[in-house]
């Protein structure tokens, strides 16, 4: 597993070095965002904590119940690649997976790192650019179809840590892959991951982003997807933990015929804040985008969904839809759903719908009147609410595990 060796120092003047410098400068000039900025209006940034916590001790991750047997796997533990727990031996030719720190060996990747989310786009994108020190570089050559999913596990088992992982993923023309990125932690660490996903013409990517952080953790993520002609991305964000969670998802349909399906499920409990901030930009004609976001909020948790659809002039034949729904399990829980449309073309089909509601009492009674206990009936209705989003998980075994997990969690979510 020599390719995984991560101690290769970046050469001065290398792309990485430049990105870091640029990141540092941008962060200094931008400063931390404030609530006055429209897109940070809802986020309780005071919960962010120490962004400078030092790299923690080497961890001893417990991965039971997390592993997917048939997957190609990279495991990062407390911000370091763990080669012993990783397994990428069965990769076909045409598919390379390595530490992001090895990027100098791939000039093409080096060329485009930072293109989708350059440091000047925001303080935290800049911070990640300055500080990232682990993550995956995944490249699929044209026409490569990967059997079995790629599983990236980010595990953290220390209390105090500030982690800056970064992925660069390139699917060249007609390449196909399923990638699962899995964040797991046990304490109140802060994680600020950034990922750039490039889809070449006709490429097909399934990406499941599973945020399963500790309830006290903070997680601010940034993902950008760029789609070329006739490519297809199915992106799903499951947010199960963290006291402060926010994911900015930026999708650009760059060329005719591209299609992006973006979905998300956020479960909030305690006083947690969770936020999906989605922006889809139709730059070319005849592209389609679908957004399906759900949140289930108990106790005094808060869920925010902001979904912006931008249709550029000339993007005729655009088909864009968006649906956001929140289920409130407590009268102290709050949901904000903000659809935003910016349409500069005339031949456009664009629909959006947003609802905030409670569990359907009639349905609850119907289930109970057939003998199903109140708790179980509630859990069933919650799972049904989440179901639309979970449906798109292609890895059956993982889907079943997640459903069972959610059912158990829903059983514990009490009404008030």
């Amino acid at each position: 597993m020599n390719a995984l060796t991560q101690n290769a120092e970046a050469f001065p003047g290398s792309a990485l070095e430049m990105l870091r410098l640029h990141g540092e400068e941008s962060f200094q000039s931008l400063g931390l965002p404030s609530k006055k900025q429209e897109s940070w209006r809802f986020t309780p940034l005071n919960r962010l904590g120490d962004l400078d916590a030092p790299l923690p001790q080497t961890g001893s991750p417990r991965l039971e119940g997390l592993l997917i047997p048939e997957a190609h796997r990279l495991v990062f533990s407390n911000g370091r690649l763990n080669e012993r727990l990783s397994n990428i031996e069965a990769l076909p030719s045409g598919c390379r997976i390595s530490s992001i720190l090895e990027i100098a060996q791939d000039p093409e990747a080096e060329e485009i790192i930072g293109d989708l989310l350059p440091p000047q786009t925001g303080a935290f994108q800049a911070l990640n650019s300055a500080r990232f020190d682990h993550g995956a570089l995944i490249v699929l050559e044209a026409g490569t179809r990967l059997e079995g999913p790629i599983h990236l596990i980010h595990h953290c088992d220390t209390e105090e840590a500030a982690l800056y992982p970064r992925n660069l993923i390139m699917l060249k023309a007609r390449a196909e892959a399923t990638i699962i990125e899995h964040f797991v932690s046990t304490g109140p660490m802060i994680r600020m991951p950034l990922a750039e996903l490039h889809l070449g013409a006709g490429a097909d990517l399934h990406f499941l982003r599973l945020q399963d952080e500790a309830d006290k953790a903070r997680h601010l993520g940034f993902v950008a997807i760029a789609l070329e002609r006739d490519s297809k991305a199915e992106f799903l964000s499951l947010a199960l933990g963290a006291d402060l969670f926010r994911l900015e998802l930026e999708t650009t349909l760059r060329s005719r015929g591209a299609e992006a399906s973006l979905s998300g499920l956020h479960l909030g409990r305690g006083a947690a804040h969770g936020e999906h901030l989605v922006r889809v930009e139709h730059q070319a004609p005849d592209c389609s985008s679908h957004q399906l976001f759900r949140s289930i909020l108990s106790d005094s948790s808060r869920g925010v969904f902001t979904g912006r659809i931008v249709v550029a002039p000339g993007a005729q034949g655009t088909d864009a839809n968006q649906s956001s729904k929140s289920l409130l399990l407590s009268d102290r829980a709050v949901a904000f759903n903000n659809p935003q449309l910016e349409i500069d073309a005339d031949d456009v089909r664009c629909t959006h719908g947003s609802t905030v509601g409670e569990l359907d009492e009639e349905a609850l009674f119907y289930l109970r009147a057939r003998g199903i206990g109140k708790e179980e009936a509630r859990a069933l209705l919650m799972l049904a609410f989440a179901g639309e989003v979970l449906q798109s998980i292609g890895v059956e075994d993982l889907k079943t595990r997640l459903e069972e997990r959610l059912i158990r969690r829903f059983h514990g979510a009490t009404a008030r």
Partner: protein
Amino acid sequence: MLEIRNLHASIGDTEILKGINLSIGDGEIHAVMGPNGSGKSTLASVLAGKEDYRVTEGEILYQGNNLLDLDAETRAREGLFLAFQYPVEIPGVGNSYFLKAALNAIRKHRGETELDAFDFLQLVKEKMKLVQMDESLLKRAVNEGFSGGEKKRNEIFHMAVLEPRMAILDETDSGLDIDALRIVSDGVNALRSPERSFLVITHYQRLLDHIVPDFVHVLKDGRIVRSGGRELALELEAEGYEDLHDRDGLRVAAGA
């Protein structure tokens, strides 16, 4: 089986049931008829344990126990079944998954082993034949997008699978075509047994040609105003409820 004594029930400040007396013996079929808004569905809901209704007076004994002490699910597990006048659509919950969960909750309550997927499927196939229900309805979400008649058939199908002791059918005949009506009635008749009782709410004497009741009661303005044998249904069909009230103007405490 079921003994309702002086039952008063309200929703908010409005009293809807105003002193119902009704006694249903083992194996009996009772029909309840009455004008729209008279409280028939309210009675059914109170029996099934809907918490929106407040029982202000009276009591209900079910198999000798106080029914009002039990929550809705316990009543169902004890063998009480309500076929809803308006079956609820539940997107995202599979009809089959739901029915299996219900059946196993009931079996568990009775101290029986839970059915596995295979045995459940066998049982379900047999019962589907009974009500001639299309298998595709089993795979869909509970009642979602079902036609009116399909919903009613689904209710009877649930009943056939769950095998209740006391079944309440709230206007299960409404919205059924003639063939469906016969199929549903045949389904009910097939379940008739000395241990199983029925309370059949209907507007139409036609249903009672198929499901022959032992007793017919007329509910009006929250009270049972008249009780009799099956011939009462014919009389109502001919004369309507207005006449009935004008002529009798009395309250009859019903009972077998």
